[in-house]
């Protein structure tokens, strides 16, 4: 029955979904890059859009040649086993709500040819990440989903899809909690219980047919 009532949900355009601003610095993986040069590279990219252009190649070449020239007489130890501490000063990108959103927003809805992001089933403000700085301790991710209608019979399936996606995509140190947004569903408590019951989720994943449906939902993930 829900199919008929929910035939025409409000749909957001793909490009209106929240997304991380253009990843800057993606292209710069030169070890030899100092901050001033990094700034220049970023500027170049803003003007020229792509690292494939000749001007970028030129700048890269100068920097590389200079670094090589400087290091030419140093004899690197290529074979010695690790001696220094392996902690590098590589900047860290923390896992944040946007990253979680990107993982799950492109899951397809089981009954529309649209994604959960487009249907506003998952929304950026409804995702919480409680990061524990000590990586040996547990961190938490809380996702609240909003079914398109309050008696959506597929809320559990959507929740299961999100859970499978997150369990496959997040490091094991995260505890994942998926809840229906308060007041968004008639049988909120039941569904919540079902979604966060390990045994029931595991049992569902044993069911090949169900797993097939979930795989299909996940196939649109980017």
């Amino acid at each position: 029955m829900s199919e008929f009532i929910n035939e025409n949900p409000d749909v957001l355009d793909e490009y209106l979904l929240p997304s991380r601003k253009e990843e800057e610095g993606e292209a710069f993986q030169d070890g030899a890059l100092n901050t001033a040069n990094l700034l220049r590279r970023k500027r170049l990219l803003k003007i020229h859009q792509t690292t494939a252009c000749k001007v970028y190649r030129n700048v890269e070449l100068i920097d590389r040649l200079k670094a090589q020239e400087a290091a030419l007489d140093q004899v690197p130890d290529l074979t010695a086993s690790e001696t220094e501490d392996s902690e590098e000063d590589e900047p860290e990108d923390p896992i944040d709500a946007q990253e979680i959103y990107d993982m799950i927003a492109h899951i397809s809805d089981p009954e529309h040819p649209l994604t959960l992001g487009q249907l506003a089933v998952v929304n950026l403000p409804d995702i919480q990440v409680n990061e524990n700085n000590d990586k040996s301790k547990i961190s938490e991710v809380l996702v609240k989903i909003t079914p398109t209608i309050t008696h959506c019979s597929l809320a559990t399936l959507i929740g299961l899809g999100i859970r499978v996606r997150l369990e496959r995509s997040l490091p094991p140190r995260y505890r994942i909690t998926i809840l229906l947004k308060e007041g968004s569903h008639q049988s909120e408590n039941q569904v919540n219980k079902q979604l966060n019951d390990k045994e029931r989720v595991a049992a569902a994943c044993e069911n090949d047919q169900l797993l097939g449906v979930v795989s299909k939902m996940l196939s649109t993930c980017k």
Partner: protein
Amino acid sequence: MSPSYSSQNLRADVVSIIANVGSDETKTLELSRKIASKVSEGQLKLVELVICLREYITSPEQTERQHALHCLSTILGELPKHTLLKNDVSVILDFYLGKFDDVYCMKETLYGLSNIVDMKCFYSNQVSSILKPLKDDYQSTQYLAGTRYYAFLVLQRLLEKFHESMLTNLPLNNLFIETFLSIAGGEKDPRNLLISFHLNSAISSTLENIPQYKEDLFDTLFCYFPITFKPPKNDPYKITNVDLKAALRGAISASPCFEEDAFGNLIDKMTASSPSVKNDTLLTMKACIERFGGEACLKNWVPIWNALKFEIMNNVDADESVAESNEPEFNNYEESLRILTSISAQLLDFKEGAFDKFRSQIFDELEPNFKYEKDLKQSSAILAAVARANIKSFNKVLEDVLKLFFESINDLDVNKLKLLILNLSFFFDAYIEVFCSYTNDAQTSAIPDNTLAQYKDQILMILSKSLKGSSKNEVSLRTLSVVQLTKLVKMPGFLSGEEVSLIVQYLTETILTDDNKNVYFACLEGLKVTSDVSENSVVEISLNQMLKYLEKKGTHTEILGAEEEVPVERILKVILDFTTSRHKLVVESIIGITNTICHFSKNKEEKEYCFMLVSCLYSLFDNNQEVLTNDAASHLKQSVETELLESSKNVAIYSDDHNLHLISAVFYFLNVNAPIINHQIELDRFLSLFIDEMKVLKAPTRSVIIFAKLLSAFDKACEIPAESLLKESISLLKTQHDKCSEFEKLAYFELLAVLSNKWCTEDAVNASLDISDTELIELEIEAWCTKGLAMKNSKLAETYTDKFVKLLRDLESGPASAKLFEVFVMDIPTLDRVKGISWNNNVRLLYKQKLFGDVAPKLVSGYSATGDMSLKANYLLALSLLLKNTPNKITINYIPNLLSLLLQAVQLNNSDVRVSALITIKGTVNQAAQLITEHMHSLVPLLMRLTCPDKYNAYLVRLTALEILRDFTNNVPLNYLLPYKDDIIKGLSVALDDKKRKVRKTCIDTRQAYFELGQVPFE
């Protein structure tokens, strides 16, 4: 009978022909030609031939009769048209007519007749004697297609030859038409149909008394509509479906007499569900409308309009996205609209009143749609189609439409505004179609007054309001108005010069301040279109304004005319984007940016700003090579070279490595494209400047890079004291290298490469180098000279690369030599081949392949010959550096030999080596996975280790390792990969917690691919 061709000869030939009929056509034809030539030369009389054939022709055997008659008919066909005299013709005609009752010989009889008809002495009074038996005694349905063909051929030839006499002789005219109707009925063969359609068309359009026969003629046509034909594979006649369709269409629309039948029947066919049938119907209807004239249109437009209206309004293709993906061959929506345009043109031609009636009915029907915002797109398209027939229709329709559109423009919300603009856009297109014949050469004056022009101000106001007055979030409205403003510019003679300037101004402001991609590209397109129409206004308004911004800028000043701050990067990006390939814009931007550089280069604080400007300048040259013709280059050389040379000495450029390098590349562009006759003069000038005045080879000088780039630009045929330059540079490097900065050293090295590549002989280079020396600086000098040599595939290069390979065994200089391997294959942009320029460098196309082919096997054998791990590392490093700079398609052939080295290389403690080895492996997986499959057991654990955080697993190592694992799922056969599935999924959970987001993302995708590996596809 003449002695040369005896009756024996004739008999022999005739017998031979008869024997060959049906088996060897070429032989038959050859002999027939021979006999025909005897007849025409007078050596043989026709009577003799007939006598000779008589016994066969009267034979009781039907095949013998057929063959003999065929023989005679063929010979007749081969005879020159004037050979037979009146008497001969009438005798032979009577003979053939007498054969009409011999059904077995019908084909040959008709064949013979078709040849007789063509004779010169066949006269009009004999026509009916052929037509009558054809009409009465010939039953077309009894015969095969080949026989029926000759019947059509006879008629076709008769009509061609006796058209005039038929027009004056009504009974003959009628007889001909009746005969045609009798033989054309029930025809199915495509070749015959083609003739039948052509005959029908010729009859109905040129003969008399058509109204009497019009129903029959039409019926013989329309029973085939819509015709479809799929030619068999070995079709000898090469008739296509299109030929038949076109012939049928031509015949149906041939005569206005068909009007009544045609329109009624075609409208019936419009209800067909097949798009191809519909398309055929529409095209035929259009042909009819155009051929039958205005009066027929007036009688029939109401039902046609109703049919078309249904088609247009209910066409799913109205949705463009569907139209693009579906059946590109038929666009019935467009065709239907085209018909409306044709009707409109015909009616207007016929009587203005008729057109008015047509127009007002359509308008009245569509008007409510605009009120209720229903089917707007289709309604506007219909009205625009009616309007675009010619100026008169355009003005008449627009009067109604614009009144309706602009009735209530004062209280428009965004949505209504959008709809209004969308509706208007159809009429802009109509305008372009109507007035494009008034070409630009006479400009505005030639465009007659029109209704749309009267509303110009309102239109401009609406468009500019929706662009300037709307919030930036209204992306679609803003994009739409930019697109329509662009269209206005395209409309010939619609806008005045000032109005175009105003639009350019709007577009410039928008492109500089709006961040949305759609709006950006719409504006870019707008500016490009405008520079087609009026380049000056774009240069003056848009480019000058941007250049002025640049002048005011500078790192520390942040003043700008507009309310918003426009970043320099954005201005430069716009300049680069919208100048593409436009000569004047490119030249003006180069000059403008050069001036700005001149201005700012004096200030030490402005290094960053200069960097942006210089990089933009470089790209202006690099992106627009095709614009830089000889003339343009010499013009630019005159206007900017001196300034740039001055600027290059200024602190913000001279002391900055990037800036100086990029600006020297600009000198390269300026000179490489300059006329080649001036190269020697220019070269001498620069030699005296750099060598004599600035003495760049006496003490280390940064500007030597400019000199090096200039040398790589000039013609290699120029005279230059190359050897002394080479010697001086080498000695400078050897004696003063401690004083050189890295930048300077590299500049001198590049100079060495250019000199040894272009001017120095192998001997001279060899003499300047000391092959036994293993000093670091000597090695570097040799490496760079070798680069120059290797690029021209010089033999000497091999000697030196061998030296470097040998040195890898050396504990002391091994590591440095390994690093220098990169120099050989590294690409330096100014030493690249430039399309269309052959004089600058000696770069062989396949030099990398040759080098790699020479060196790689030596590296492999050297590697296996040593047991010392640190020496092995040298070989691996050298190899990885070669691989990194050599295209994958060259290296792929060597992979089987290299794979074990690569597997070791990824375990070396150097992340660069690991990356280049991994990239090679990745290329192999994607291009030749079969080489990898047997190494899966060692590769998988290795790659898994490389995905984990580790000092030497730099970002790119981890990322590439993951990508290789992911690519396995697409390229490696399932049975090789499945055993590792669970291990990989489990092992990759480490990389899920990687520090870098992109690594995590790739890891997620890779894991997902393994989760799905071997899973039965859903559905």
